[in-house]
């Protein structure tokens, strides 16, 4: 976290310093070396990998059936039998957390990916063509930027109706403009580079130039921004579920678990404590990985 001051670097790599595309292997090597030098992001990366494994193999890992109530074990605190205790229906909280990992990751990843794809296309078009297209897209994202994120999402869900798929759309919509802006700035500098000019002088069509020459230059920025946005998306999805606008109360979504558990805050705090902890650690991990990626991918960063 110590080198936070150089955040802006990714958004405008200096054209001259862009490494030529054919050295992909070398680039990857440099990246891995740089990334693994950072302790916290590395740790966080392992945690994220663990989360993905849990999401994939979740059903085989849960000690109990996450949906099976046990009316003889209501709201029990953490114990040997139930590591994270049981909830108000006697369901094992650890099993529900494990089961909910998939839901949490699916919602946050898909919303960020949608935002990434949309934002990248808009940014490339906006930066490359410029002119009125640029102005429309950028003013559009300014409008979206002017809303507080969560408020915009609540508005969208209010229009579309509650449900996880609508949460994905809502989070994607407010995530798009930041991608568009970042990619536009990278595009602006990349289109002035010699190799783009060379391609153009050889008669390459606009589409080819954007796709084959400019897009690869934006990939590091996309990856960094993706990883940075996932944490926010998890938080936003959990908030919406907490407000009853996302996951149904019956689903083992972390936010929904928090929401249903808040009635028991004073008598059985563990019901909200563990989902809260899960959200906290996951968001933290994704943000640390994002930091690490940024530092490792930024060519300006000197070790």
């Amino acid at each position, binding site marked *: 976290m110590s080198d936070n001051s150089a955040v802006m670097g990714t958004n405008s790599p200096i054209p001259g310093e862009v490494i030529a595309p054919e050295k992909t292997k070398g680039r990857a090597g440099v990246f891995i070396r740089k990334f693994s030098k950072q302790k916290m992001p590395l740790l966080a990366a392992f945690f994220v990998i663990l989360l993905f494994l849990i999401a994939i193999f979740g059903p085989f890992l849960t000690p109990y059936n996450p949906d099976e*109530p046990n009316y003889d074990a209501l709201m029990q605190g953490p114990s040997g039998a139930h590591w994270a205790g049981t909830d108000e229906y006697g369901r094992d909280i650890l099993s529900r957390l494990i089961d909910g990992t998939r839901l949490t990751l699916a919602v946050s990843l898909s919303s960020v990916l949608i935002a990434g794809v949309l934002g990248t296309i808009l940014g490339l078009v906006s930066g490359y063509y410029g002119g009125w297209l640029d102005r429309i897209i950028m003013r559009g994202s300014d409008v979206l930027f002017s809303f507080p994120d969560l408020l915009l999402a609540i508005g969208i869900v209010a229009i579309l109706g509650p449900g996880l798929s609508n949460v994905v759309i809502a989070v994607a919509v407010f995530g798009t403009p930041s991608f568009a802006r970042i990619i536009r700035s990278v595009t602006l500098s990349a289109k002035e580079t010699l190799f783009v000019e060379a391609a153009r002088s050889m008669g390459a069509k606009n589409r080819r130039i954007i796709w084959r020459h400019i897009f690869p230059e934006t990939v590091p920025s996309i990856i960094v921004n993706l990883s940075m946005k996932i944490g926010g998306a998890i938080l936003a999805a959990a908030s919406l579920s907490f407000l009853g606008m996302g996951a*149904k*109360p019956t689903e083992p979504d972390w936010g929904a678990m928090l929401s*249903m558990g808040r009635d028991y*805050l*004073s008598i059985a705090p563990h019901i909200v404590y563990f989902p*809260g902890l899960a959200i906290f650690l996951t968001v933290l991990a994704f*943000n640390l990985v994002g930091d690490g990626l940024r530092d490792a991918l930024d060519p300006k960063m000197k070790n």
Partner: protein
Amino acid sequence: MKAKGKVWSMFMLLLITVVMTAGCGNKASNEGQGGNTAGGTETSTPTTKNDKDIVIAINANFITLDPHNASDTHSISAARTMYEGLMGFDENMNVVPVLSASHSISEDGLVYTFTLQENVKFQDGTDFNAEAVKVNIARIQDEKNNLRLRKSFAKVAKVETPDAKTVVITLSEPYNAFLNKVAMAPIISPKALTENGADISKMPVGTGPFKFKEWVQGDRLVVEKNTDYWQKDLPKVDSITFRPVPENGSRIAMLKTGEADFIYPMPTEQVSEVEGLEGITVDTIDSTIVRYVTLNTMKKPFDDVKVRQAINYAINKDAYIKVVKSGLGAKLDSTMSSKTQYYSQQTGYDYDIEKAKQLLAEAGYPDGFETEVWGENESETMKGMQFIQQQLALVGIKVEVKSMEGGTLSDQINAAKTPEEAKIQMWYVSWSPSSGDADGATRGLFSSEMFPPAGSNTAYYKNENVDKWIAEANKAVDPEAAKSIYANIQKTVWEDAPWAFMGVDQIISGKRSYLEGVKVFPDGSINVLNAEVK
């Protein structure tokens, strides 16, 4: 900028965690503190009150303040703070005179003569008299108004006013629950009725102990002391603010901090925690509130009685009481609670998954089916719906839980003008006969005349025998005859299972100990006439 935002959100998360943990710690220390400073004013929660403005937190919004059109208990409670009828109820749901000084019933049960209280004025200064009663009954009966109470007054043939303090009501046929219905019909100021028209539901004017001050939908209803109230020395408080707080946790917190002086319902799972706390009193009484799930008998697959019975077998009611009601309540073993007039106990529907599966298979749904249950978005109702979902999942019925805000839900249900239009499949809800009689616990729910929006037969239950019996029971002058008719009705409905029969509530309210006189009646309505701050 980005990093700043992220660090900031991390910090907030940490802060929330810390506050949460601290909150849990605080509770314990408060309990100790309360013990040490008993009677003092230094406790963190107030044990005395300086003003006479009380706050009552309840679990749902008021739907309407039109006393002739209210069907939910909270709206009825609110209406009763500002309105009074010729008759009313005491805390055991007996019918007692209010605006009528005395009344007599002719031997054939057809003519009711009321002598009115004198010197009673409406809050707008006009006189309460026989003419006002006549105007109100005419309003209720007017088909154009389509009021909830209309069916209760359908048998009124004529209303006469020989003088200003006498009202003579003649029925077309005997109706033994008529006095209860009269008690359900508060009298609105005729002047206000003409002036406000349809807006009377937002600007109530009655003769009650409190007069309307303001109603902010979803936030509060404020009523203030009616200084010209006809009963001497009442009311004893200056104002009452009703605050709908659907969330159990918030309601209990409001009671603990003294932000609310009275809360109802008291969340069952918190009772053990609050009991014995300095300055808080918990009251428990048996209720006439029954909880059930209506099954739309006109919609597939609930049109098959086997499916409905299967659902009754599939739900473990003992577990329901334990999980959803924290053990405070009883199983529902009829169509009404044991506290209701002419109750007759039924047996059967003991928890039996195999039997439920077998019935489903016989009905042609061996693998179950998908459906949805509706309910209010209030904590305990949501918990009940999830419980039902879990139980039915065991026999293969996949239930989607749809919770809605009370007004939206009511609109959804009443939007269907005919049974065919109805979208409702299952509705987890409760009913209490606010009129205190068996008719009130039966007709509105099981008579085929009472399909929404006219009544609350949300199961769209139609059984010709039951329809016939309901009519007969009303005419029965002999109580024993009425009792056996109601026993037939309960048995038939129980077997037809238009509901999943769930439980009977206990009424649990919490209050600050300095508050007296606020009572919750067995039907769940809140009575504030004698409210007093000591």
